[in-house]
């Protein structure tokens, strides 16, 4: 451990920690736009600037290693003025259409504008007009809202290992795009959507649904593969409107295309909504009441058991369903019916 002083507080931090990490360990708030502890420091947004005793100018705390005896100031009228200017510059080239933006309420830039009380902008002038080309089924780009923090590019490269997007051009013309602005080789994991601090990257499936803070979150476990990712289902009434994942769980907030965007089967109009019975062999399946269906099942299973013995009945449980359901199912077969003919699709 090393010790340093941040805002007159004595702080212990592990070797190799940055000044930003040390400050956050001590619950000292430093604003950032381009930082994500799950990725390498980048130093793009300049919001995390701090003064360090002995250095002539402010430095970015996310890229500066903490050292023994360092004395750090995270907030001063000058630092706040510089931060405010940075945010003003970002907003000068931003649509500022929060009223109709899907990300309002869940937007780091909006929070910063609020924090620094920016209503009029000293730098208002030319605004980039990006033409949007979206031929994919999942991700909605609104590049006018991009602050060039690079989180999407970095998550795609550092975490996903895909590198579907990168930076093009310089200065005012800077752009995030796939190679040569075409040939998008994307797995649609949506990691970029999950880290975007503004409304630049959102999901097509979210459009027309309530914004995040109008949705009810429920923590649960993904239904697809055996990775067991923790997911948050965001619901509105009986509709699942969004899926996300918290960055502090064992899958670190990362999901795949199925987990993040493959949820619309839940509210599919094709869901079964009533029991169905085939009243005669060769006939069609017809809607029935629960009692009729359950009574029929019981009488038919009982008669097979009486005529041919319990081992003439078999059950297939489900690798998609819960432990409790599977436990009760095998108990029903073993203790209720009297057979060990119970298996599931472990082999498929």
């Amino acid at each position, binding site marked *: 451990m090393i010790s340093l002083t941040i805002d007159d507080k004595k702080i212990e931090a592990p070797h190799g920690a940055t000044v930003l990490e040390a400050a956050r360990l001590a619950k000292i708030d430093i604003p950032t736009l381009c930082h994500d502890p799950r990725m390498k420091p980048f130093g793009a947004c300049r919001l995390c600037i701090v003064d360090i005793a002995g250095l002539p100018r402010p430095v970015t705390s996310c890229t500066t290693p903490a050292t023994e005896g360092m004395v750090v100031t995270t907030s001063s009228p000058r630092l706040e003025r510089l931060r405010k200017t940075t945010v003003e510059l970002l907003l000068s080239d931003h649509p500022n259409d929060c009223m109709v933006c899907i990300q309002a309420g869940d937007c780091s830039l909006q929070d910063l504008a609020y924090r620094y009380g920016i209503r009029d902008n000293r730098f208002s002038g030319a605004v980039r007009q990006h033409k949007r080309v979206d031929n994919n089924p999942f991700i909605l780009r609104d590049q006018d809202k991009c602050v060039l923090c690079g989180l999407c590019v970095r998550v795609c490269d550092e975490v996903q290992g895909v590198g579907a997007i990168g930076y093009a051009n310089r200065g005012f013309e800077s752009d995030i795009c796939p190679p040569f602005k075409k040939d998008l080789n994307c797995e*649609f994991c949506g990691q970029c959507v999950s880290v975007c601090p503004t409304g630049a990257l959102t999901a097509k499936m979210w459009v027309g649904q309530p914004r995040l803070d109008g949705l009810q979150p429920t923590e649960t476990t993904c239904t697809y593969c055996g990775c067991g990712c923790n997911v948050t289902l965001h619901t509105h009434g009986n509709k699942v409107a969004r899926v996300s994942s918290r960055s502090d769980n064992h899958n670190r907030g990362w999901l795949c*295309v199925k987990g993040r965007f493959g949820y619309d089967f839940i509210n599919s109009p094709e869901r079964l*909504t009533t029991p169905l*019975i085939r009243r005669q062999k060769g006939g069609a399946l017809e809607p029935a009441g629960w009692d009729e269906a359950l009574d029929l099942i019981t009488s038919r299973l009982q008669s097979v058991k009486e005529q041919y013995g319990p081992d003439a009945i078999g059950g297939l*449980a489900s690798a998609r369903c819960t*432990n409790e359901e599977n436990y009760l199912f095998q108990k029903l077969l*073993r*203790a209720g019916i009297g057979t060990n003919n119970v298996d599931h699709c472990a082999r498929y």
Partner: protein
Amino acid sequence: MAGLATKFGSGAMTNSVEGISRNDVLFVIGSNTTENHPIIGLRMKEAVAGGAQLIVADPRRIPLVKFATLWLRHRPGTDSVLLNAIMNVILAEGLEDKKFIADRTEGYAEFVESLATFTPEFAEGVTGVAADDIRKAARIYAGAGNAGIYYAMGITQHTMGTNNVMAVGNLAMLTGNLGKDAAGVNPLRGQNNVQGACDMGCLPGDYPGYQKVSNPAVQAKFEKAWGKSLSPKPGLTASEMTGAMLSGDLRAMYIFGENPALSDPNMSHSIKAFKALDFLVVQDIFLTETAELADVVLPGASFAEKDGTFTSSERRVQRVRPAIASPGEAKNDLAIIHEVYKRIDPAAAAFDVAAAELFAEAASLWPGIAGMQYDRLEGDGLQWPCPTVDHPGTSYLFQETFPREGGKALFSNVPYVVSDELPDSEYPFLLTTGRELFHYHTGTMTRKSKGLNAAASEPFIEINPADAAVLGISDAELLSVSSRRGSIKVKARVSDIVPAKVVFIPFHYKEAAANMLTSDALDPISKIMEAKVCAVRVEKQAA
């Protein structure tokens, strides 16, 4: 799983996903991890970025190959020969872990003898992998401080699937890569709760916790707990049930949340079997291909509507919580099963059905989860074994001992076995099947997702450009593909992802079901079907 259970006494992932990034070497065989277990795939990429070496053994150029130090492109069905040859080299070059072998294993002398014929040169002839690459793989794997093996259905869905798993286990034992935080043998489970369904006793020979139905002491324990006399006779596996339905031994089936009519190899055979039943009940959230054959269909609940737990591939038991209500009259599956139970045995089922209480009942019968209760499963949950309420769960297995009699792991001799049906002049291509990123299993859920279905909208057959040239096939051309069991029409995807003479079809699509073609030859031990190898003919459609 049967393979690992024989050798180690337990058949689950020995390590944790989180520990993958601490592997020095990763050996991935028969797992297209980035597409089938994408988040585990991220950890593998992280390990490689951190300097770990990655060996990929796969006939297909899967996305992980891009990250690999060494890619072994062996012929489908030759996994155990490849593994045996790697071990042959390890012994020849003295790279084995003598202390681990002496202290923690048995059956070694006989096993060493069994490897004698598996020279790299012999293996080159069988597998198509250069002998020098086999040597390289042996040196990389055996040279690691911490080496993890990761596998999936790519090595298990074969008639010698259990052998393949045993060979994987042998390799880890030979090099002492077991019982450590970041070294072990890790079967990646394909479904969210396949681990849990096994754990909970949905296996014909096992009560919850892998306690054998044929063991009289176990039988007595469950008879006492459930207040019923129970059968000591192991039941039929899912794959054996098909035959029993056709022979008339099995008359009625209750299928819950599965779609075997599309997922079973040799599909037309299994559909015939379901039709032969006197009575079929299917409980699902959609009218699946299997439900269409049923006499009664019960509308169940999706994961977003239920309370309970799932157990992930790394033995992690986690909570599932209801977020919405089920549509229409659809009911919670627990309640449905309980309703059936109540009608069949009113006295035994006279309890209020609550997920937490059923979990507690299972925990009281299986010491492996005895220390788990719902209030301990908040957040990331717990990994079994977790025997007591103050136990933190187990991130990796076999630290001290193996749960076998004597506490040691068993070496097993793995002979050379050939796949049941290999290409010949009539059916000259080898078909292998699998999943793709955008879909899941039989597509019951993913094909009803607009976005996923747009990203991957139709079935395809991957065929090597050299084969396509010989047959005069162009990309996206509709082909007829047939085996001895059936025939489908499917569009060509000309690609060097597959080697020459091998074709690949994903099994998600009912309109061109790969399982119309696959073989139902079984592994004699695990009863798994050989979905990864069969012989097919590929033909252009008549104009």
